């Protein structure tokens, strides 16, 4: 088995797998605001505030956190239904 593994050189080494896994998890954890309990509750709060003025559904708010270079971007999208605007 080991002897055959030797010739299967296109197979990724376990160290390469480890590095890839680490890069993903470390990049993820370096973003301080990415914990699962943070975004949902922020979204809920924003929804409450917007609802004071415009009736909207939960799915009309989209919140996402992105990273560009050293900058963290919090993107907030609120789509207002056509009928509601009536322009």
């Amino acid at each position, binding site marked *: 088995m*080991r*002897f055959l593994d030797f010739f299967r050189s296109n197979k990724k080494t*376990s*160290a390469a*797998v*480890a590095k890839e896994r680490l890069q*993903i*998890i470390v990049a993820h954890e370096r973003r301080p605001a990415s914990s*699962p*309990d943070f975004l949902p509750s922020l979204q809920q709060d924003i929804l409450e505030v917007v609802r004071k003025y415009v009736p909207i559904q939960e799915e009309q708010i989209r919140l996402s956190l992105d990273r560009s270079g050293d900058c963290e971007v919090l993107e907030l999208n609120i789509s207002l239904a056509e009928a509601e605007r009536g322009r």
Partner: protein
Amino acid sequence: MSEEKKNGKEQRKPGQVIVVTSGKGGVGKTTTSAAFAAGLAVRGYKTAVLDFDVGLRNLDLIMGCERRVVYDLLNVIHGEGSLNQALIKDKRVNNLFILPASQTRNKDALTMEGVGAVIEELQRSFDYIVCDSPAGIEKGAMTAMYFADQALVVTNPEISSVRDSDRIIGMLASKTRRAEQDLTPVQEHLVVTRYDPARVERGDMLSAEDVREILAIPFLGVVPESKAVLTASNSGVPVTLLKESDAGDAYFDIVDRFLGRERPFRFMDAPKKGFLSRLFGG
């Protein structure tokens, strides 16, 4: 590594809580927790493995489920998610579930009552609950051991590790629920890891017998120093689920002895390698 099915679960006892502890860091607690829990699951027991290392979780990495973590132990304790949402089902073995620790919170958020409630709920549906303790004797470690029925004391054949294990054995006898409520004491088991029989033979390393004599608790076996352990953690596979490895075999012996089956002690003597096994590795 055959799959054995345990049958007959007509009336169930509450699951057994096993803490994997050592005092000292880096001796192989998480490796042991992952390998032991996976081994129990392969033997047919429904097993949950819990990470208590709040802020420095690693069990998810060793189990290879780091990208599937959404809710953790602290979310469950604080009612932000249910236990079922937080338990990650292993994709390789039936009966195996992982409950990660929180990576972002402070360890003070780990309350004894909260952990007690989670463990009690787990005991209703699991046969074994394996608690992976953090190093040290701080809150995380004390919480991990508090509800234990049994303990795997992971020790390296090295003086500082043995001394720290002795401290931990003292705490198992005084700072656990079983001690406080005057129940039968926590059943302790010694697991000697990173064992190198060749160095023991040369007199460069404490023997398993030495460690056992000093710590004076029942001995479950040794796990040899093995390349397979790094390969396994690189790939996020518990070493007992690796195709074939000395460490995996050693952990299966340990699991079986834990389950009360007789297994001859292996990996205690230096192997005499022949020419072919040197060439092809073995």
